[in-house]
């Protein structure tokens, strides 16, 4: 079985940059004061296998041109997947025309050129040169092998369904601003995952594992993905809620990003400017315990969120967001930075690393008298305005250093202003297959609701 590649003479980044330059010039000619143009192409293949048969194969190639128009301090943004110049002419002139109807806003303009990166030659190692060698057969083979291993979940285990997936993608993009910025990016990605559903006395617990990376060679072997999917399923057997109460909470390193991202939303400059953040006014103030250090590092070689500039062309810089519990910066884009009188430093985060502790998860568990290990979140929310949160969880009850019971159908609730002060330990085990290198984290006395 051979899969053709849909490569109808795709543009390369040099040609994309020429088209971006043309589009930007055309926007200016049509009446825009400034313009930003980004053009991208991504191609992906995904294979899913179930019962040793291919369930789905999906191939896709996606083009996009996005255009930001500034016309006398009026702003609009547009995108299309039609990159034919003839159609773009109409698209751009109408976009410029439309912008005239909006209200002027003196803070609307492209970033100051001083914010753009000086050196675009740094190689972040985001492209696997061997990507083109990945054959259709090897994708299927990988998924088949993983599925077979997941299906063999163990003696006495009634498997309802096992599935394995393999996917890979490449993407290329350029960005050009009429006030001087020109940048390009290219990356590859490989991902593998497995899921398992079993019968457990009338219940049907389902587990999952996944890993992703820029390089094929960095993916864990099929056996490891399968083993994790099986473990994550079997550990749910006999699960039940336990009594409501305050427990120490251990967060598995694979799901730590769920909590961390809820810290970033209230740091976004828009939420600060819109009075929509419980962290407004907290720069250089403690917002968590001394164990909480959060670093945004865009320069990790091969990192899943590594970059030299962000979606506004603003230069990427390594920055401490929280240092030993003290908030060091908001996440500031160009527009809201101007509104707040603050220097833009990017509203989005890149790779997140933390200050790591000395013990692994096993040692941390062994040291707990009574705790709940959370290894999955389900639903819930955290209110960026007030910090109130309530999240569904499933995991394991720990007593005297040992797992004694699978738990589920429980919520954790409280306020983020307090929660991060309750962080008492981070592990030495940053999760490797995500842009958030979260370690295992331990919080004391968290409100759990159950029975």
């Amino acid at each position, binding site marked *: 079985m051979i899969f*053709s590649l849909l490569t109808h003479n795709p543009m390369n980044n040099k040609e994309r940059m020429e088209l971006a330059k043309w589009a930007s010039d055309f926007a200016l000619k049509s009446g825009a004061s400034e313009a930003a143009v980004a053009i991208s192409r991504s191609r992906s293949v995904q294979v899913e296998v179930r019962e040793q048969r291919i369930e789905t194969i999906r191939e896709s190639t996606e083009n996009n041109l996005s255009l930001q128009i500034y016309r006398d301090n009026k702003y609009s943004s547009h995108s299309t997947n039609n990159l034919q110049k003839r159609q773009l002419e109409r698209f751009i002139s109408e976009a410029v025309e*439309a912008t005239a109807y909006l209200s002027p806003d003196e803070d609307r303009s492209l970033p100051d050129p001083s914010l753009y990166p000086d050196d675009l030659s740094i190689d972040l190692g985001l492209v696997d040169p061997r990507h083109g060698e990945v054959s259709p057969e090897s994708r299927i083979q990988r998924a088949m092998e993983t599925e077979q291993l997941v299906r063999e979940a163990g003696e006495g285990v009634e498997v309802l369904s096992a599935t394995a997936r393999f996917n890979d993608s490449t993407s290329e993009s350029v960005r050009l601003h009429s006030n001087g910025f020109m940048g390009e990016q290219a990356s590859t990605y490989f991902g593998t995952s497995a899921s398992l559903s079993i019968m457990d006395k009338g219940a049907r617990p389902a587990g999952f594992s996944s890993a992703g990376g820029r390089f094929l060679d960095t993916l864990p072997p099929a056996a490891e993905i399968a083993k994790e999917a099986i473990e994550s399923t079997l550990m749910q057997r006999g699960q039940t809620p336990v009594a409501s109460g305050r427990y120490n909470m251990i967060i598995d390193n694979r799901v730590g990003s769920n909590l961390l991202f809820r810290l970033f939303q209230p740091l976004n400059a828009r939420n600060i400017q819109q009075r929509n953040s419980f962290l407004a006014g907290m720069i250089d103030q403690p917002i968590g315990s001394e164990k909480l250090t959060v670093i945004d590092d865009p320069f990790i070689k091969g990192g899943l969120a590594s970059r030299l500039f962000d979606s506004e062309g603003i230069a990427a810089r390594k920055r401490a967001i929280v240092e030993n519990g003290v908030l060091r910066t908001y996440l500031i884009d160009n527009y809201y930075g101007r509104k707040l009188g603050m220097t833009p430093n990017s509203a989005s985060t890149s790779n997140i690393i933390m200050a790591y502790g000395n013990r692994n998860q096993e040692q941390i568990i062994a040291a707990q008298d009574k705790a709940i290990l959370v290894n999955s979140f389900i639903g819930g929310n955290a209110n960026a305005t007030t910090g*109130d949160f309530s999240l569904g969880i499933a995991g394991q009850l720990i007593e005297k250093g040992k797992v004694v019971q699978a738990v589920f159908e429980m919520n954790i609730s409280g306020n983020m202003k307090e929660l991060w002060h309750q962080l008492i330990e981070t592990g030495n085990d940053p999760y490797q297959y995500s842009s958030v290198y979260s370690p295992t984290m331990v919080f004391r006395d968290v409100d759990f609701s159950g029975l």
Partner: protein
Amino acid sequence: MLMKKSFNRRDFLRTGGIAVAGAYVLPSMLSGCMRGPKASSPLGYQLSDYLNHFGVSRRTIMDVIAEGLSKGGDYCDLYFQHSLNNSVALEDNSVNRAYSNVSFGLGIRVLDGEQTGYSYTEDLSPASMKSAARTAANIADSGARVKVMPLSERTFQNFYPISTPWEEVSINSKIPLLQAINEKTFSLDPRIIKTTVSFSDSTSYVLFANSEGVIACDYQPMGSLGTSCVAEQNGRTEQNGYNISARDDIELFSDFNLNRIAREAVESTVLLFDAVMPRAGQMPVVLAAGSSGILLHEAIGHGMEADFNRRGESIFSDKIGKKVAESFVTIVDDGTVPNMRGSINMDDEGNQTQKTHMVVDGILTSYLHDRISSRHYGVDPTGNGRRESFRHMPLPRMRNTYMLNGPHEKQEIIESVKYGILAETFTGGQVKIGPGDFTFYIKQGYLIEEGKITNPIKDVNIIGNGPKVLEDIVMVANDLEMSEGGWTCGKAGQGVPASMGQPTVKVSSITVGGRNV
């Protein structure tokens, strides 16, 4: 009388959807088409218009399908889509941003039994379409086995009649609506310090054809308008909002509805200053009529989508024909509610939409099917095969999911609760579809103490298991309301518009997030 005019694809494309540009820009699809009440073709569009606009002939379509079947697949379908999305927003008293997106392409699916090959192309030249078809064809690996049937048009009733297409609505006529809501929110309560208002509309032109000889088209409009407010009191801030969304035209945003959006947003925001957190643990939960239908969506709807059942993963997979709830519980998934956000004329597999009864008098009666699952179970399709866009393959998905009225009164339900909560508005929910564990998040509600509504509550997550919660529905009132909010249901990386509804319902016990006292 219907007037038609043929347009070539270049005209169609070059008007690429900048409705934001103002009244003088009319997409070619509209110029020359008299609007009229023709059931199967909203606004008077004919199948031939769609063929012209996508620049394809019946012959080309059949050739592409044949290419899709060339490796031995037993079924192939083509899904052409042109979608135009516009939005405009107000912040800090100024309408100072607008966005638009145009998307155009063809998705090609080939089935070999329950196996799927999927590919898409953004280039509708015959060569590109055939190349994409060959890619999807590779799910099978023999020679052609199935013949392409001659195409015959399938028509449908129109469940979203509108008078004015969104492409005719100038940004000029949207701006005053945003300003009116903004002014109203500030006038209603001095504690409001920030208001944002956003307006979005979308139009999707769909042309569908398959190897069984079905060809059909649909015009899918959507309009949404909502506001979010921040209020301040004694140094504390709270935020909440309200929005309405429907497959409707600009008439939806009448003065009455603008005032209602502003009032609902302001009242639900300032109420939060008095809100408390309930006790943690299991307790009776009363779900107010309307958007509480999120319970049905998460606790039962997803578990009834037949893909998870045919694979044996769903907790509902052995429950058809069995009693799952009290006899006064009847739950439907309905694509036929006029102008409702989750309604569809045809599903994205060319099947007629319908009102599907999932639970009748407490008995589980039908799953929600796509083509693969209806073939698996040997039943008729239920019109639930939906996809986000031409870039996605169809899956069984909900439309408008709601519970029918029951025998109780709202007041008697409240009075029956000693300590529990009344849930009114929600930010969202989630479910592990196989195991049936679900959650939804209460943005605002009330405590019920000794049969009386007392303090407001906020920011509380509810967690339970689908079949268990169905069993625990002990009272259902007779006040069914549909949610008018802009819900989008996500599954397998695809978002589709959906809606829901419910009368006031009492669940005897669910785990409620809260404080341990």
